[in-house]
């Protein structure tokens, strides 16, 4: 079966809870077959946005268009989305087959047809042998596949996934992430995914919409939002980073030039959409630990505070520019680690530092 995913466009969505503004002016366009993730901390409005698309919350303002048709006035049972919840929300009193056949039964299909299509779908997710089991007899991964089968069997316009992997441990999470991606590749459905986990978002998504305090603050590919964050929030939420403050000296060769408190100069990229500060004004810069490098002739002098081996990389904390900077490197060996107190020089490539808004 190939489900042809449809586009879902959200325009200017607003939602109040009492005096509290839960979602403010959120717009995005999920393309047919795309995997779009709403990423943000709890309380950022990402789940409320998903629930408005699904129909469980009514927006105060805004449009929800499926292939161009506004569905905002329809109750959830009249929209045509497959929703997968955290914990999977399988029906505990029905067998696996009955769970998967449920949406077909609700659509009034004949019993034989229900069983045939549900059986086919179970085969797609590799669970034919479990059709007669109860959900509680399945492992977490199998339950997820049942939930996906149930959400896909009626050929929905798109899949909406609300932190489906939220409560699981890391190993299981990673293998289920790959399974979701594999199923999407097989059936070609559009997916709107909600998570608070930046690694999950980066590993799975075509595009990421970063949300904070009810607003969509940046939308782009994983590489764009990670490498070129526009605000301190996005820079910090997508991974560890160092924030450096300096005064803005101007733009040279398309790069921003800053002067730090110790008088040294630094250069940084000016991402699209970031306002250029005024001459001499305060400017904030983000450099990720893996982009900060120990260089024999680096422009910045520092002193090693600590060095921790973390497996894939080692993490130095270096006192420099009047603050503690994190620096991660894969060039580490048990004998060659720098001791605390060692004097080092460091620097970064201009395009690896980002000037931020605010």
């Amino acid at each position, binding site marked *: 079966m190939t489900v042809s995913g449809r586009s879902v466009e959200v325009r200017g969505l607003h939602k109040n809870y009492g005096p509290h503004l839960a979602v403010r002016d959120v717009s995005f366009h999920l393309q047919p077959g795309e995997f779009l993730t709403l990423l943000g901390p709890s309380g950022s409005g990402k789940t409320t946005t998903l629930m408005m698309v699904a129909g469980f919350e009514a927006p105060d303002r805004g449009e929800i268009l499926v292939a161009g048709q506004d569905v905002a006035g329809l109750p959830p*049972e009249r929209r045509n989305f497959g929703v997968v919840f*955290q914990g999977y929300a399988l029906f505990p009193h029905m067998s696996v087959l009955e769970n998967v056949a449920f*949406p077909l039964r609700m659509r009034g299909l004949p019993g034989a047809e229900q069983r045939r299509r549900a059986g086919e779908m179970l085969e797609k997710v590799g669970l034919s042998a479990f059709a007669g089991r109860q959900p509680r007899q399945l492992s977490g991964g199998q339950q997820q596949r049942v939930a996906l089968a149930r959400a896909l069997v009626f050929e929905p316009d798109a899949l909406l996934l609300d932190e489906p992997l939220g409560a699981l441990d890391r190993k299981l999470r990673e293998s289920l992430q790959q399974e979701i991606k594999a199923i999407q590749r097989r059936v070609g459905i559009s997916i709107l995914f909600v998570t608070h986990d930046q690694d999950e978002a980066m590993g799975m998504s075509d595009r990421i919409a970063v949300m904070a305090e009810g607003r969509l603050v940046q939308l782009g590919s994983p590489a764009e939002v990670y490498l070129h964050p526009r605000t301190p929030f996005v820079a910090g939420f997508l991974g560890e980073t160092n924030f450096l403050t300096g005064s803005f000296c101007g733009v040279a060769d398309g790069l921003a030039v800053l002067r730090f408190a110790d008088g040294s100069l630094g250069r940084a990229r000016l991402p699209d959409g970031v306002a250029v500060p005024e001459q001499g004004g305060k400017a904030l810069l983000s450099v990720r630990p893996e982009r900060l490098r120990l260089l024999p002739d680096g422009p910045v002098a520092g002193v090693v505070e600590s060095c921790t081996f973390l497996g894939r990389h080692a993490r130095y904390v270096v006192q420099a520019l009047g603050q503690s900077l994190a620096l991660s490197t894969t060039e580490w060996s048990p004998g060659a680690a720098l001791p605390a107190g060692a004097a080092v020089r460091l620097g970064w490539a201009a395009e690896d530092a980002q000037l931020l808004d605010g």
Partner: protein
Amino acid sequence: MAATPHRLPLLWLLLPAGLLYGGLALYPLAGMLQMSLTEGWGHYAEVTQGRLLWRAATNTVAISLTTTAIALLLGYVLAAGLWRCGPATRALLLAFIMLPFWTAVLVKNFAWAALLQDNGVVNGLLQWAGLTTAPVTLLHNRLAVIIGMVHYVLPYAVFPIYTAMRGIDLRVERAARSLGAGTLALFWTVLLPLTMPGVLSAGLLAFIVSAGFYVTPVVLGSPSDMMVSNLVSYYVHELVDFNAAAALAMLILAAITPVIVLQQFASRGQHGGG
């Protein structure tokens, strides 16, 4: 050193009190058993040969079943209300439901008796409304007994059902909606099946409480509505036959025990199934 040795002291402190209470609970039972057997099975024969017991037993089952059915229906609706309403409404509803639970049984029954009597408020209302000219006999019949008993038993029916409803994951309900279930389909295919263990538990509990009922049939019913518990009182007060009363009490206990055991299993299954 299989067990942790540091736990034992507290348990030893508990032992004497446990024995004391065990005695307190078992002693009357053993005493009754002994009393009922003073003449072998004689007292049992005496009690079971009279037509009174069979009439009382039939009454008990019929009245208890009717009460249970009505209480389940009303209780399900009330439990659904409790589940769905906001916290303020819930507090108010809970107060309503608990009211009869807290009011002494007797106070309530006399209130009903006063209201249902020939020159009581209900007959006044009926005559004022022109629905009847002569007072209708509302008291001392089975209807009065059942109204009083439903009123008494209702809280017992509401809470197991409410507990079952609270155990339903909101996400399961939302999943059903997103898969195309409207309000009625949602009720029949998801909510009702998931609350059935609660309904079963509530029904058995309501039946037990109804069957053990003593006060209501005496105050509101006619002598023909006598239930088995009344019969114990009858043997003690009218016949002054303690041994027969004891035999009767043992019979009641023997009859109700399996239902109680069933109820205990049902209420446990409820937690497992949530």
